[in-house]
């Protein structure tokens, strides 16, 4: 092992003397790196799906609240089940 270590260090010494390659940034590299470094991080598909689902959920909740608000005056009517879905939908459409 000692002998290999000695020989290895000799070869490494020669390797260090090998001529170095060009160390100047290629044309446009700096601007590309800055643009890549400063661009907002790309969103993962899961995050996009979660955001979309949350918006859909918020929309659905909104529609439910509007339906409930329209149904509220009829809560104590003699025919509470009478208005039904068709009327609620018609009322929403009318309100729009």
């Amino acid at each position, binding site marked *: 092992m000692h002998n290999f270590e000695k020989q*290895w*260090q000799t070869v490494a010494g020669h390797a260090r003397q090998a001529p170095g390659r060009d160390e100047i940034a290629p044309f446009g590299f700096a601007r590309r790196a800055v643009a890549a470094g400063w661009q907002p991080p790309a969103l993962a598909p899961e995050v996009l799906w979660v955001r979309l689902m949350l918006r859909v959920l918020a929309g659905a909740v909104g529609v439910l609240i509007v339906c409930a608000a329209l149904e509220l005056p009829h809560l104590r009517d003699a025919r509470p089940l009478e208005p039904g879905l068709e009327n609620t939908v018609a009322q929403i459409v009318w309100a729009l």
Partner: protein
Amino acid sequence: MVTDEFDWRACLEQVRQRDEDAAAVLVERLYPLVIRIVRSHLPRRVAEEDLAQDVFVKMFARLDQYQERAGTPFEHWVARLAVRTCLDALKAADRRPELRWGDLSEEQAAWLDFMLADQSATPNSSAASAREVIEQLLSQLPPDDRLVISLIDLEEKTVREVSEMTGWSGTLVKVRAFRARRKLRKLAQALSSQDRYAQL
């Protein structure tokens, strides 16, 4: 080469204020340091320019984490970031290509023979071929071993410097270097025996 005359503090201040020109100057200033590290620890099938760009992207993303302290110049912080990025890329590359005797040129084979022989006269082969054979052997090592040998034996970093760059303790660095050289010896022996079998 990165010199001390450059006003790092002023440049960093401008970069933090999103000055694009200052950021480009910073990249150009650090490029030689980063590309040297990247070339020493580049996985196969990864373009050195892509990996260098990854280092700079991380640098910009984490710039706020850098705090100027005595003894921690900005270049050291970037060097550490570059080493970590390369190590991650090497680990991601996972599979190491198999090295065969036939892959070596005559000059490279002469250096390999020299490593295993008990001779003091170095072969009449170029320094570039010595570098190539070392890089070929290092490509066979696990990423951590490759890193420690590149830094200590090729870049002549001290154990303390390697410890600062990698976050490993000094003892761990020494132990890794010792084990890595032992693996290199086994690799060289295995390659050399391949040669003998081929000649039978």
